[in-house]
């Protein structure tokens, strides 16, 4: 696929293609229309995103890649409603969240979106089980211990329920974080370098779990990463440079991803 100026809306029409969901008909879960994000003012102004048009279809896993400072984290933050955009509009499940009030965004975080990060971001004072149950408790929806335990068992931590984060290895902590993101069954999971701090074996486990979310749960994943191996697990890769979408790959291979990335960084 060739690099294309990001003029029209790039719908990443990939993901599960089958008789029940033919390509091109997938619902767009997250959509950015002409999104620009600027930091600072005057001379010091930096344009982190520059008129980005992109859509993420339901049930797909998209990796966002690019050199440092290309705006990939900003793209994810804007898409998740964590950061306000300077220009353009952001849609989540068809709803315009560009200037949604805090209450609406909070409700979205409770039910619709989930997050997984490089630095795990578990609450140190809570056990694995409590960390996983936290979003449910905050949403005041009934917390079923069984659900929580099932989710933890699904990520292979059925025997680590009462452990605090500091008593778990990095890979185990990341699996708790994924379990936390799974328990509310969010439509969209935003992942920022989810394997960045893990050894390759733990990284494979985590990527496998994410694959399962997309294939079995029909969830949508938007993942920022540096790692070509992680990006190759996704359905598609979008490349950013200087705040613009400059390239993309569908059904990527590790080699192709590394090659594109090298060209962008070089």
């Amino acid at each position, binding site marked *: 696929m060739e690099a294309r100026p990001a003029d029209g809306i790039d719908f990443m029409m990939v993901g599960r293609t089958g008789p029940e969901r033919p390509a091109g008909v997938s619902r767009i879960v997250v959509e950015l229309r002409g999104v620009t994000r600027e930091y600072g003012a005057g001379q010091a102004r930096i344009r982190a995103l520059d008129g980005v048009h992109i859509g993420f279809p339901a049930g797909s896993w998209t990796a966002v890649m690019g050199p440092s400072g290309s705006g990939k984290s900003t793209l994810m933050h804007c898409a998740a409603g*964590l950061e306000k955009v300077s220009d353009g509009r952001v849609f989540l499940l068809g709803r315009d969240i560009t200037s949604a009030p805090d209450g609406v965004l909070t409700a979205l975080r409770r039910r619709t979106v989930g997050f997984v990060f490089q630095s795990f971001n578990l*609450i*140190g*004072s809570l056990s694995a089980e*409590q960390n996983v149950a936290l979003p449910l408790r905050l949403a005041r929806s009934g917390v079923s211990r069984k659900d929580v335990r099932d989710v933890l068992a699904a990520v292979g931590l059925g025997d680590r329920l009462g452990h605090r*984060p500091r008593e778990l290895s990095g890979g185990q902590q990341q699996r708790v974080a994924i379990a936390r993101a799974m328990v509310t069954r969010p439509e969209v999971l935003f992942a920022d370098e989810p394997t960045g*701090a893990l050894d390759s074996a733990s990284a494979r486990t985590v990527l496998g779990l994410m694959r399962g979310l997309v294939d079995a749960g029909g969830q949508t994943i938007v993942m920022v990463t540096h790692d070509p191996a992680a990006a190759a697990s996704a359905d598609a890769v979008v490349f950013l440079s200087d705040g613009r979408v400059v390239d993309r790959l569908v059904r990527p291979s590790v080699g192709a991803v590394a090659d594109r990335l090298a060209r962008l960084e070089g």
Partner: protein
Amino acid sequence: MLRLSLTTFREHRRLFAGAIVAVALGVALLQSSLLVMAAISDAEIPSSPSGQARERLRDAYAGAATLLGMTVLLAAFLTLFIVSSTFAFTVAQRRKELALLRLAGGSRPQLLGLLLCEASLLGTAGTAAGVLIGVPATWAQSWSLVAFGFLPAGFSPRLDGGIMLASACTGLGVALLGVLAAARRAAAVRPLEALRDAGRAARVMTVSRWFFGTSLLALTIWMIWVGQASEVLGAIVIALGVSVLGAVALSLLSPLVVPLAGRLFGLALRPSTLGELAQANLRDAVRRSASTAAPLIVLVALVLGLTGTLDSLATMVGEEQRRIVAGDLVVDSTGAAAARIAEVPGVAVASVQSTVPVSVTGRHRRAGRAYRRTVYSGVVAVDPPAYGRTHRPVARAGSLDRLHGRTIAVAPGQSEEGWRLGDVVTARVGGRRMRLRIVALLPPTLENGADNFLVPRELVPDAIAARAPAQTVVQVAPGTDPAAVAGRLRAAGIGTVRTVARWAGDRAAAEERGNMAIFAVLMGLGGLYAAVAVVNAVIIAGAERTAEFAVARVTGLSRPQVVRMALIEASAVTAIGLALGGLVAAGALAGIAAAGVRAVGVPLVAVPWTPLLLLVPGAFLVTGAASVWSTLSATRRRPVTLVTARE
């Protein structure tokens, strides 16, 4: 939310320990002070003894109640200060955790709720401890009030459920009030902050800090400037204001001022590697340095400023008496013995002043209204011509020359109580009533408990005057050695003989002792709270430095070196706090010095050496011990486990 706050509360219990101690202390003090105050208001003034004794008892009760009232206010203010600064600190430290809660779907009201829950847990723990400590504290407080002479012996308060409940509610209320500002800031934490590794350092200098800090500082500087050109009493009021406002201003601005002062210290620290590290930490960790220095600034400024002001006032009392009294010797004796002084060879003038058991009832006018009131004490019988020759004050209305027959003069102690020249008062002298006309009003003096009324000696029966305690001012004949006359007076066994200078110095010392008794209680309390606040800040700061210390050790510092580095840093912050507090106190006393120079040609400033000598080593000891302890406990685990561990 309660369950969540229980977990977070347990997790951060070390951060909250200082605040719990502060609440416990506050509740205990509130409870014991209120119980003693209730006992005072219930206490019946016995009807049997003389009016003089009743008045003394009533004054003692009123004095004790005032002192207790000030204690309660101070305790409430300091508790609130510690609780709110603790929460401000923990919110700053826990930004990432709070942002994470927001990311996991926590709403702003839920975050507010979390912190309010934590505050009520803290308040409950502190209050429970406080109510228990409050019981023995009540006995200790009433015992010490009796020991200091504020209350009569045999005074004992009763426990009262209502008061204990009220103190408990206040403790909880203070904890919740203290968390409000911090909770508002916590709710403003954005979920995105969870994603930043270090988390954006929260601004230490908030808008309100800037606003109140700079405006109070400007006000303080203006007051110091005005103080340079004011009267003695005005200078004293200004000095008290400067101590309080300056202390608050500098503690608000401490995040700016402390690193600035740290630069100066840096010049001294730089030569050694550990010193250089400590100095860099000092500049970098603004919040930590500022919150350690702030309580010290407040404590030093208040203690040195207030005691310095009051001691200076006492010095001025002595100086004033020395100027008022024109004589060589002062003799304390009974009235009977005093009558013999004039016959001693070498005595030119002897002005006998006997404090007689006379009550004076009359109308005095205040704020446009007239009251009838009786004064039982401080009525002095004088020989007007001799008194006039040995005392310099000119009556500000009327004249002492007219003080003969059925007349009375209003002395400095009642000078500002609204008595009027020409009014008639009723005096009761040894069971006899007589009507006396006010013929002179003397100007007020700086002294506490100065004489209230002067009556001519002839009005008092000889039997009463002979028994009354007398003070006689003696002028020796020209060319006679006062020491020789003093020797003769002593040989005659008349009483205690002092030079006027010595007597005035004793008056000043007595005044100072009176101030100290009150200030020992209040400043002891202030010092205790400041110690809690400083230890709290050092320990909270130590808790967040575990990772930093681990990195330092992995880089090649030994554990003792890390401890020494933290100790140097803590000592530098302490020195800065002490110096800034001292600066405020110096500003406060500068006005008094200037007023003294203008009034009498000498800067009458009493530098409060005793509190200074207690405070300086005490502050270094407390911060040093807290720093060593918290550094040791933060470096207990092997550094490698800390450097590699996440979360």
